[in-house]
């Protein structure tokens, strides 16, 4: 119980700190949203529009920073995230919902798949060191993960979309259709997701394989594993219940953190496949000095990462009783 309270306390302090930093850092940047917006028009708009934008965005309201901060904390706690200046003053929640489901779907599923597959391959290849699996999969995936993502991505685009025409070139779904909950549309989304998902998977899996394999090798040499063998337990049971369970622990925190970062999207994937997602939105909001959108996205990421770490702490405590208290 004390463990849980302590963890919760840490969670709240970290949240407050993130909230505060989140408010002040963007405001240290030079310029303001109106100037940034003028920049995005690339000179195609009358320079006189800057004044109109300043009025619309409430720039130069001369409210002191501490007052703005108090208003911001209050608004955030009551769920008022404001209106996005770079998305035509739409409510921030509306803007985020344009991209978030796509990131959660694509990056979320590939992260979980990558972790599950990577750990399994890592565990098995450590268990059968020098076997066929061990001498092929880990090296291949580690080499692939060393390539820059966009290189792999563009190679996939060229081969599977442009040359072989197996998969669509870009977008999250056939761009001229309207999203609807029909089998046809779901199929279309899956069709568009295959290529981005595969490229994420093959570039991300190498890391999980490597760490799991290394952890496993250490654990397999432990006395309790020898003991289990000596007792004549089934190898499968030793592999997963004795060695795997313990080798997994260090990977679990890493997994939790990457789950948290699912919410930050995958910017290069979005770039290469013109896939909707929060990664590009985050970059764009920073460039456009869209404070409300930027703050909300950072907040979302922070909350997600902190929650994921909190949950992984609890999971670790369940898997490994030693971490529950120092005594």
């Amino acid at each position, binding site marked *: 119980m004390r463990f849980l309270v302590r963890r919760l306390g840490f969670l709240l302090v970290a949240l407050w700190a993130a909230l505060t930093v989140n408010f002040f850092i963007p405001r240290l940047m030079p*310029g303001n949203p109106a100037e940034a917006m003028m920049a995005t028009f690339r000179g*195609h*708009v009358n320079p006189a*529009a800057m004044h109109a934008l300043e*009025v619309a965005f409430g720039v130069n309201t001369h409210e002191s920073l501490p007052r703005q901060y108090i208003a911001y904390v209050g608004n955030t706690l009551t769920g008022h995230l404001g209106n996005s200046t*770079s998305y035509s003053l739409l409510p921030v929640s509306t803007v985020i919902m344009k991209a978030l489901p796509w990131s959660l779907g694509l990056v979320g599923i590939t992260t979980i798949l990558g972790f599950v597959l990577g750990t399994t391959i890592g565990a098995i290849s450590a268990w059968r060191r020098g076997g066929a699996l061990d001498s092929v999969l880990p090296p291949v995936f580690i080499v692939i993960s060393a390539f820059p993502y966009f290189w792999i991505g563009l190679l996939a685009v060229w081969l599977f979309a*442009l040359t072989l025409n197996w998969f669509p070139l870009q977008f999250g779904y056939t*761009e001229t259709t309207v999203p609807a909950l029909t089998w046809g549309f779901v199929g279309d989304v899956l069709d568009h997701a295959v290529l981005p998902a595969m490229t994420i998977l093959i570039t991300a899996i190498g890391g999980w394989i490597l760490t799991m394999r290394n952890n496993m090798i250490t654990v397999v040499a432990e006395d309790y594993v020898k003991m289990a063998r000596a007792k004549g337990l089934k190898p499968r049971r030793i592999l997963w219940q004795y060695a795997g369970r313990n080798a997994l622990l260090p990977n679990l925190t890493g997994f939790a953190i990457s789950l948290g970062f699912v919410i930050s999207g995958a910017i290069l994937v979005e770039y290469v496949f013109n896939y909707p997602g929060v990664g*590009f939105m985050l970059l764009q909001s920073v460039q456009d000095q869209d404070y409300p959108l930027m703050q909300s996205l950072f907040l979302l990421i922070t909350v997600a990462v902190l929650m994921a770490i909190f949950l992984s702490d609890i999971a670790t405590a369940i898997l490994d009783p030693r971490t529950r208290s120092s005594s």
Partner: protein
Amino acid sequence: MRGTLRAGLVGSALALVASTFVMISSGTVVLATSSAAGASTQAPLNLANEQGLLWPCTFNPFNPSDAAYSVGVTYETLDFVDALNNAKVTPWLASSYAWSNSNKTLTFTIRSGVKWTDGTPLTAADVAYTFNLIKKNAALDVNAVWTVLSSVKQSGANKVVFTFKTAAVPFFYYVAGQTPIVPEHIWSKIKNPVTDPVKNPLGSGGYIMSKCTSENIQWTANPHYWQPGLGAVKVVNMPAFLSNNTCNEYLATGKSAWGSQFIPNIKSYYVAKKPGNSYWFAPVANVVLFPNLKVAPLNDVAVRKAISYGINRAQVSKIGEYGYEPPATQTGIVTPTFSSWSSSVASTAAGTSYNPSKAKSILTADGYKMDSSGYFAKGGKELALTIITNGGYSDWVAAMQVVSQELKRVGIKASVDGVAATNFYSDVYAGKFQLAYNAEAGGPAPFYEMRQWLYSKNSAPIGTAASSNWERFSSPAVDALLNQYTATTSSATQHSIINQLQMVMVNQVPVIPLLEEVDWFQYNSKQYTGFPGPGNEYAQPGLYNIPDWGVVLLHLKPVK
């Protein structure tokens, strides 16, 4: 550059790799032809217009971010002013106009028989309402028309009278050519016209926004449009592109027949891919080196002149911009678009635009001496400058690197600083630079860009953001000339003023035009006819020009 990659290094790397791949695959690419849909149903026209965001699906014509997707196609203006053809005025919602009261009163006669797409007639009351709506909400006044207007009133059944504070003839372009007219019976019910997203825009134009998702905006032709015979294309799609290279792929694979993209190596990447693929980059404004006139040594006209003569603009164009943007001249007149405004006196006075020996002799006459390291110096101080440019535009950075090499040859040390976009613009606006490479919006005649550059009231003290005149030029004589221009409708007087301003450009070198900003435009002539081109410059075809691209769309015809 306008229309080029916006995420710096990542973007340029992607484009490089992407163009290589498409080149490798040139023989094997299977072109997804959109015209193959058969004769019975017309295939939609897809547009390639990278804006780096998912569509917000808001169509507020007074919001500069939304205007490009509503003004021209859905909402219309009183007149159409053609920036590529001597500001030629085509009557649109107004059937005629007249200046009176020494050019302080402008009276429009509103066309009869025009209907909003809900069937309600468009009247003079709608026009007067629109302008007074803008007056009430400063945030809607994108073109600052109420800085010069004093009242807009309906007069009789079909006339609207605009009264100006002082004569403001060039503001005709913003009032008649750029301000969208909205229906009073809809907008009077909108609570907050500034923040209202206008999800279902209702206008009088040739196209109705029929559906919008984050990934695509679709328009369908207005079956009851008031100009019969226009609007032959039935369905138009504008997908959302996050990066330049995905949008270029869309164009190059033949999915789109009309784009306004910056495409590296356009001949091999685009033109060679499909019969009919063409491009036309019409010059519309200048890309300019702004010298900070408030700081030494650039407050010295000799240094500015030396810089202007010391740069081989043709080289900058070739290396920095694939030759897409032609070299500019110190007179500031964009050719061939505004050739009729070019002053032979000013051109003669300026002489050859690239003249390194003249650059050196100007500096020597000004008291500069070449030091041991090959740079000019005066009073022990080397002539060393920093050029800032938008680091997100890879081509601008490349162009400035050429400038730096060119200047080195005439003994001026110039380093290039590619600044992150937000910092770049705030530095430019606040005057925190020595030399800045940037462009103004321009307009349908050289006057607009000249006024943006030179009018002292556009500027601001160093440290305060200026909307234009970033170099902080201030000359009562030039202000007087610009004011005189706004008071006249006489073409002869206008030309004489622009001639004098060209002399100012040559003699005082307030800014240094380097290249000509172009309108990015690619099209497939085998799929659609009616696009503008050399000799037929009826509108700007870039998909960000309002209301121009709507006008171009109306004139397109699918090839059977």
